[in-house]
């Protein structure tokens, strides 16, 4: 188990590194899916088969598909890659990498050798997770539904095709 964890962790870190450095958005997405799959494995190892499955379905599945969809709609191609080459000069990385390096160093310094204990590796069954979600956490689920409703309404409003005044008919109805 430990080996699986460390291998997956290495894959996750490396592929994530690739995500943030790629110029081509589709490549980055593919690396991110790799990273998410690796994290799913880790989640499974840590005793969460249900969350591991969700990671694959929702993250690597649904959310990434949303990204792919947007990339297709925007028709991002070689033009964008050239653009990225211009934007991503080596100098751009110094500040962020330095900052994040310090932050990560601080976190690792704090974490190293002080964490609470040992992961048991025992699994939380999907049934137990479900019972928890719809038992004491049921209000949280309701809140999550409100959250999704807010996202839905917000995305609908923002994503509607913009109608400027000129485009608008004299009858005042959007031409949607």
């Amino acid at each position, binding site marked *: 188990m430990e080996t699986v964890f460390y291998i997956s962790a290495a894959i996750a870190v490396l592929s994530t590194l690739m995500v943030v450095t790629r110029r081509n958005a589709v490549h980055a997405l593919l690396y991110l899916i790799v990273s998410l799959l690796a994290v799913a494995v880790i989640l499974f190892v840590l005793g969460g088969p249900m969350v591991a499955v969700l990671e694959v379905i929702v993250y690597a599945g649904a959310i990434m598909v949303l990204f792919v969809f947007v990339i297709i709609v925007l028709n991002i191609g070689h033009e964008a890659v050239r653009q990225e080459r211009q934007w991503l000069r080596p100098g751009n990385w110094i500040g962020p990498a330095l900052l994040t390096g310090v932050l990560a160093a601080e*976190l690792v310094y704090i974490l190293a050798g002080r964490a609470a204990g040992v992961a048991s590796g025992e699994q939380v069954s999907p049934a137990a997770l479900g019972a928890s979600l719809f038992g004491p956490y049921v209000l949280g689920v309701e809140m999550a539904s409100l959250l999704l409703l807010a996202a839905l309404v917000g995305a609908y409003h923002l994503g509607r095709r913009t109608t400027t005044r000129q485009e608008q008919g004299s009858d005042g109805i959007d031409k949607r």
Partner: protein
Amino acid sequence: MRQLLWLIPALPLAGFVILALAGRAMPRRAVAAVAVLALGLACALAVGVGVEFVAQGSATQWTSPADGQSPVPAYAWRQSLWQWVGVDGFKSDVVLRLDSLSLVFVLVITFVGAMIVLYSTGFMWGDDGYSRFFAYMNLFVAMMLTLVLAGDLLLLYLGWEGVGLCSFLLIGFWYKDPANARAARKAFIVTRLGDTAFAIGLFLLFTRLGTLDVQEVLSRAAAQWPAGSTLATAAALLLLGGAIGKSAQLPLQTWLPDAMAGPTPVSALIHAATMVTAGVYLIARMHVLYRLAPQVQLLVGIIGGATLVYAGLSALTQTDLKRALAYSTISQIGYMFLALGVGAWSAGIFHFVTHAFFKSLLFLAAGVIIQRLHEEHDIFRMGGLLRRMPLVFWTFLAGAASLAALPLVTAGYYSKDLILSEAWSSNKLLWSAGVLGAFITALYSFRLVGVIFFGQEKTAPRGRTPAVMALPLVVLAVLAVAAGFINVPPLLGGWPGLTRLLEWTLPSAGIHHDVAAEIGSSLAVALTTLAGVAVAWLVYVRKPAWSEAIVRPGLRRLVWRWWNAGWGFDWLYDRLFVRPFVGLARLNRDDFIDSFFDSVAWTSRQTHRALSLTQNGQLRWYAMVMALGAILALGVAIFI
């Protein structure tokens, strides 16, 4: 009735709120009705409250300050409304306090206020800012009532600043004329000098006595501070600073003549009858302090004596009717200060009452004259109005007679006589200033009467005086003559009711039964007054040529002009303070203090500029600063 005390200031305040919110949409008659009704009801209520207060006060046993036992007023009604703020160590209540002193003020303010507002409904009829005017007037009365009814010095200060604000707004009522706006600003700034002293005085009282409640301040001061102590002197001096600013006494008197730029009813109510006497009220209210600081009390008297002579001579030389009346107001308040200074507390308040009646009467009559003579202010362009405006003549005559203190038949005589007869036994020098002033007063009042109403008619009046304006004139004229009978000295076989009432609150002037001296003083006052009237009659009615002779070129004319210009105080202040200040500012660009403030401003500006650079609109920079913040916070956790 006692529970309704709060309604007295609340009614005009309600009138203000109604007029401020809806006044523009209301017809003029409704505006007038609201304004008059608010003050009329307040006045009726004040009378009701007053009757009950006097009845209960007479039926109760207590030790009055006049007995010399307790220095602090004993019989008073308190109405605690609510606590404004309160934490450990500091609290301020909104509390009303009615004693005989504030009762007298409340009655005069509401009554004269109602009369003047009634008059204004006619006077301001053609003005664009009709509802605005009455909103301000109602607010003023509410603030003035707050000032006199306040049981807490902070509340008193609120009223004090509130009347100042209303005065500012009303002097500059016709704000489109820059001269009016300038006069308003001058009044605001000059009184502000005094107010600053007042505020420092309040702070001193609070830090030293730990309270701002009037009753508490007085009793603690009496208990903790020995007579003549430095603290008492300092506090009394600082409060005096506020009083002379508000009451236009030397050397802060210069704003009042310019304040005549406001509408005439404003001059009558604010700058004659009520607000300018707030200084007198303040000193009377804090009389314990002044008794603890005899030097300061003497200073009050000296200021009063000097002011009354100075302003009287200036009034004598004015050609603008309203400015003449303004200087006369300064001079009469000088009498009140003189009274307070010599310890004739209730006599000073008595003079406030009679002055409120006759001076507002004079202003209102002046308003009619000026309006009907097409905004003519110069008295030498008037003349011969006796036949054209008989009603105005008779009422103006009543006011002038009362101002001149025509013996026995006018209210002004009784109050002035009382002041001077008490001054006689206390300070002969101030007494002689008062008697000199009485002569000047008689002279300038009958100069006005003679020049305006007799001789050749120079400008033809137009129109008629409407009834709403005539009625207040008549009522006030009656009072200007008859109000003296509420306080007829025992010597003349009367009963001094007002003095007795005020002695519930204020110390009595000391026991003196020197009947001979009293008679002597009264005779002297009566004779000088009559002499003044006679001279005025001779010079301005019988032999007008003489009056021109006075201003013939030469030393006399110079003196005349000097007095006319208010003894050059404006000129002096301009040279002494304004110009050196501007010059100093110009010369000492690199002055230490200057550069200190400059550097503070410079540093702020530079920091502002530098910080503005951080707001560069770049999303990634914002995120970076956020991350930096997180790093610093974690650094604190690790290294501390």
